[in-house]
């Protein structure tokens, strides 16, 4: 097992009371859907947000869909709706 660090951006960090979370992952990785499920179980306050399609997953600075597989060492982040300007 290796460790995957997941960043929680914007209000997600407040909901989980953590800006980043670490997960144990097997060598063949986890899907983004699995990561969402894990976060929902670990942080009940995050469940609604993290399972919403309004919250997007970002891997190594690219937006990915729920089937994407992530492995230890990759930069994974979840983005609530963006708000610039």
């Amino acid at each position, binding site marked *: 097992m290796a460790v995957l660090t997941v*960043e929680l*951006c*914007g*209000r997600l960090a*407040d909901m989980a009371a953590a800006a980043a979370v670490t997960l144990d992952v097997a060598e063949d990785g986890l899907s983004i859907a699995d990561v969402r499920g894990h976060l929902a179980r670990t942080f009940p306050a995050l469940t609604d947000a993290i399972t919403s399609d309004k919250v997007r997953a970002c891997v190594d*600075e690219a937006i990915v869909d729920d089937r994407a597989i992530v492995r230890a060492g990759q*930069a994974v982040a979840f983005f609530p709706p*963006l708000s*610039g*300007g």
Partner: protein
Amino acid sequence: MAVVLATEPINPAILLAEAETQSNGAGALASFTGLARRAGKDGDTITALVLEHYRGLTLASMQAIAAAATARFALAHAHITHRSGRVLPGEAIVFVAATAPHRAAALDAVAYMMDRLKTEAVFWKYEETAGGKRWIEPTETDHARVTAWSL
């Protein structure tokens, strides 16, 4: 094209002067500055607007918007400077400028860049008040505006 992610206060007047030097003979220079509000919707005092960004993706999202505006409106020059971090009331959050041969293109390009920044630039922001944090997300109007550009 000039696109800057700034972590210190920005000066719209200096940025307008820079954009003016980049007009390349074009006759029209439009700009928009977003300023941090002093009071929230319910009238409470805002002590700061705090913006978060994400690594290189934030600057890349700003560059994509400036490049799209340059192509779409045949701009001579596009400029976006966006703050990240803690912005005090009255300080500029964002400065956008466009130069073009004609005024409609310059003004439309500024509106277009602002509309896309609101919903597509990689930022999250909250108002800091005596009562705590209040996260700000784009409104239905903001979403409708950005959709209208792709019709």
